[in-house]
């Protein structure tokens, strides 16, 4: 399953798609891929890719995720549900605003929707979050199903402008 980093650095999204297979991480960096064995030891992550090996420290603070590699530290904001929802408004990719369980999929492939129409309902910690269409359009893809777990930032539905 392809996941995506839901982070930003200084307001710029760090939304790198990646796959995890056991201890193996494959990053999709657009023009290239980065494959590495990643092994955790406390807050250190040993990263081995081909001939090169290093280690990075990662920790989550109150509002940010910190990662340090080779003595340089990068501070990243976690994409908040409200930020993600805003982000979704400008694109046709509707992503999960939070981690949770899909309780209902209202969107149907090929169906026309109006701005504000319910697409997906996600539940987490007894809170329901209604993911609605940011604009009028046609549902071109449904990427989630009722009962499935989704991660923050996972693609749920894609919309296309009405023809």
């Amino acid at each position: 399953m392809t996941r995506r980093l839901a982070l930003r650095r200084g307001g710029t999204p760090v939304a790198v798609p990646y796959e995890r297979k056991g201890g193996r991480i494959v990053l999709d960096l657009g023009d290239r891929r980065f494959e590495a064995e990643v092994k955790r030891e406390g807050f250190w992550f040993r990263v081995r890719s081909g001939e090169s090996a290093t280690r990075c420290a990662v920790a989550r603070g109150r509002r940010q995720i910190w990662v340090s590699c080779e003595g340089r530290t990068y501070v990243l904001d976690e994409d908040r549900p409200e930020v993600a929802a805003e982000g979704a408004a400008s694109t046709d990719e509707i992503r999960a605003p939070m981690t949770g369980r899909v309780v209902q999929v209202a969107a149907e492939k090929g169906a026309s929707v109006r701005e504000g129409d319910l697409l997906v309902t996600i539940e987490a910690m007894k809170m329901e979050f209604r993911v609605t269409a940011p604009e009028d359009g046609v549902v071109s893809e449904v990427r989630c199903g009722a009962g499935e777990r989704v991660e923050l930032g996972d693609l749920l539905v894609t919309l296309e402008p009405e023809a």
Partner: protein
Amino acid sequence: MSPARADYAVGKPFRKVLVANRGEIAVRVCRTLREMGIPSVTVTSDADRRAPHARAGDESVAIGPAPAAESYLNASAILDAARRTGAEAIHPGYGFLSENAAFAAECRAAGIVFIGPAPESMERLGDKSAARRTAASLGVPLVPGAEEVPSVERAVTEAERVGFPVMLKASGGGGGRGMRVVASASEMKPAYETARREAASAFGNDRLLLEKYVHPARHVEVQILADGRDALALGERECSLQRRHQKLIEESPSAAVGSKTRAAMEDAAVTLAKAAKYAGVMTAEFLMGADGSFYFLEVNTRLQVEHPVTEMRSGLDLVRAQILIAAGRTVGDAPPPLRGHAIEARLCAEDAYHGFLPQTGTILALAWHEEEGVRVDSGIAQGQTLSPYYDSLLAKLIAHGRDREDARRKLLRALRGTALLGVVTNQSFLIDLLEDDSFVKAETFTHTVESREWRVPETIPDAALAALAAFSSEPRAQGGAEEDTDRYSPWQRLGAWGRS
């Protein structure tokens, strides 16, 4: 025989010593006391109750509220703590009360040994105006200037006499606080007022002096070990890489100091120490022009932050030497041989890429690099919350190598192997400095740091992204190193949601 030699067999010079400081230096002084078998007492402000130095000694006494003026600068509270715990001596560290002659005199009056020079020596050398008079009378070269500038008008007159640009400095202390470069008469008033305020709050004394601003210049200082009669020079340290007159990188020897200049500088420093009948560790600071000429700047009548650089080269423990000298030992007449090259980097909680703004926060993860020839003097611990009340210095990383390049590479490895998460520090910037051409070529001047633009590393390395991906795809419950969080925040509760 030198009292500082490791093989010097002595009984305990004091039954108990109180360390009147905080942070890395308090921890470091406690280490030597422990090695000497001397019980130690630390003091803490309310903000430092859980700081590492509170646990570094054998006992700890709370001395007052967070502001330094009410705690670490509170002489009566510190003397009271010494009396109550039965400490026979007080080690002042650096900063705070370390250069306060009145405090040294109070200690003496209370029958407690101040581990540092006699108040008379401090008055003669520690006060910058007095030190300049002493230096001038001994033929030590001085930067032209004025010892007293009691008003803005007087400062302008004196500046016009020696020629702009000039520097305003606090008469009563070092470390860069209370210092301002003034380029023209119109800038004098605001600079004068700021310098005075800083001097008053940092040293409790708002008197200023004025000097011609030598440019470009290197900062070179000589370490002295003296017993009131004899004085030994332990070579120089170059500390040119500074920001806002606060040192960032220090090294010994200086690549720019030739043997003739070194001998002349050491001679000047020894002359100053002997003239003041100085007992303890002392540093004479010089400004060195591009042509190798040097001018006496000031004397620091205390242990320097960068003293480990000299310790790494000489094999001496300067804190141990201070304690033994305070107990009446002599220094002998032969300085130890100095070996190899040592470089220190100061790790500070400040955003070097954005105006060196001081940073606070909670340390989420902390790991140091371990290697032969690498020393870390730290005053921080994982889980600690840094308060905004004190200096931003967190730790010093010092590397000793057979030559400058060996030490530089070792220090780079130490910095790259260090992880400190949760608080923005200058770690990445220190790497920039050590990797920079100017440092590699030893073309370092006091303006080098501030005359350049240093940019935040733009790209997050692939390995860091992979680590983030691995971290993000783990169940949060095993996220490790989590800060105390607001348990009522819905987003935090989301964070606690288990993932498969």
